């Protein structure tokens, strides 16, 4: 099943971009998105307005083809609209818009906005308690996106508040110009987060990292994308 979702998503990316299959497959976020939507997130096209659903926030709004493709593969949007990607009247912009696309939880594109929103959302769901059941929040950021200072405001507060419902996945394709000496995980761990660093192309490794128990703490998965691995 998981293989089929990934294969389907790759085909759908090609529909959008006309790229060769290996380029579509190289999208840095693809395997993370498939792992989340195909195995982790408790959300479906039938529950996109259910207050108890898990929320996925794509903070790194750049290059959303893989995101749209996975949403289409999972039935949130009609695959037939994918070729309209980026067109004037399309709902599928080069950065996603929550008011246009079913299943998209935030409008993003400008870097450094998703994680602060995720902190407020995870806190709010926790305050809701039973009304939100165990709804969790997953936020995808990029390693270069982490340069935005707003992330560090959010990382610090989430750690102090012990936001157990908050999960961050950092897709690290070493695109940050100045890098993160000592590693990205250390920056979260210092603030009280649970952290795992894994091969971002490995479905079993991603699955295991997302299932780590982290009572009383937020959890971050650093998904390393080294294209030599694939």
């Amino acid at each position, binding site marked *: 099943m998981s293989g089929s979702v990934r294969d389907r998503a790759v085909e759908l990316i090609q529909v959008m971009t006309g790229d060769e299959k290996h380029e579509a497959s190289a999208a840095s976020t693809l395997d993370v998105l498939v792992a989340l939507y195909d195995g982790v997130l408790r959300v479906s096209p039938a529950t996109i307005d259910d207050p108890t659903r898990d929320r996925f926030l794509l903070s790194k709004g750049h290059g959303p083809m893989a995101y749209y493709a996975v949403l289409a593969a999972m039935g949130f949007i009609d695959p037939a609209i994918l070729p309209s990607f980026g067109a004037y009247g399309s709902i599928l912009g080069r950065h996603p818009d929550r008011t246009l696309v079913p299943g998209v939880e935030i409008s993003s594109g400008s870097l450094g906005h998703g994680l602060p929103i995720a*902190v*407020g959302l995870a806190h709010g769901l926790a305050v809701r308690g039973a009304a939100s059941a165990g709804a969790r929040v997953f936020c995808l950021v990029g390693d270069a996106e982490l340069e935005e200072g707003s992330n560090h405001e959010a990382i610090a507060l989430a750690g102090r508040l012990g936001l157990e419902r908050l999960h961050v996945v950092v897709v690290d394709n070493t695109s940050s110009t100045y890098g993160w000496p000592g590693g990205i995980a250390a920056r979260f761990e210092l603030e009280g987060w649970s952290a795992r660093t894994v091969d971002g192309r490995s479905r079993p490794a991603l699955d295991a990292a997302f299932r780590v128990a982290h009572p009383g703490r937020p959890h971050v998965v650093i998904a390393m994308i080294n294209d030599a691995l694939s």
Partner: protein
Amino acid sequence: MTVANALDRPVTVARETMRDRFYSVAPTLLDADPNVAIVLAEIGTDAFDAAAERHPGRVLNVGIREQLLIGAAAGLALAGFRPIVHTYAPFLVERPFEQLKLDLGHNDLGAVLVSVGASFDASASGRTHQAPEDVALLSALPGWRIEVPGHPDELEAILRAAAGRSDRTYIRLSELANESAVAGAVDGATAGRMTVVRRGRGATIVAVGPMLDQVVDAVADLDVTVLYATTVRPFDAAALGAIVDAPEVVIVEPYLEGSSAAVVSAALGARPHRLLSIGVPLIEPRRYGEPTEHRAAYGLDAASIGRRIRAFLEQSSDYVRR
């Protein structure tokens, strides 16, 4: 409140400010509505300590992190809360301006922003704590309701109404206030509408929020109409269009001069008119002292306003003929 002393010079005595009223009313909104949440960045936390104990998690202090202040408010809105977000105007509007544009506006999420400091309440603190440009900045974003109460009673009515909506509202509190509330501005039935304070035959003067007392004094001996506005966005174009007789229109605002010039002109449409905008000048004053000293220095006291309005009206042949 000002009272005359033996030398007939006004002295100011302690009275309740809009900020005092906000700190007494906002905690009760948490009691009344389970969807209300308060989001703070260290400023004002003491006022909510007791409410925070009654309502765990619904008073969120993010520390000195104002980008997160707005982002977290947006997240709370996504969780179904009505966030009331509060700090000094520069840190609420200017520092996280992109968060206002995107996290709230572009994401189409609601919040109530309540600022203190206004244009120069923090006169002795200098430029860093002053935000005369806040209304102009928010006016550049679509979909914001901007409220400028002139009295604690007006603030309370505006705050209660905003807490019950789901829109994006900015409420601008000031230490400078009018002696008494305007009846229409505390009446929910007329919320968002301008109030006719005085009807005259000549020019129309629009006084915004805390400028009303100064304006009324300034035009005491002129045959003009005075309108009072607390809601400046959306601007009550219908009321202005319905009442303007003479072509002269003046708007007196307690923030950056000209902030409402475009909406006033638009309200008058193709009708020939002349507009005088009075507000805080576009300068870097580098002065401290008292708010009233700043008010006088910027020509926002009654005497200065009166001189500018008379000079403006004397330029009008119509006015001279009348």
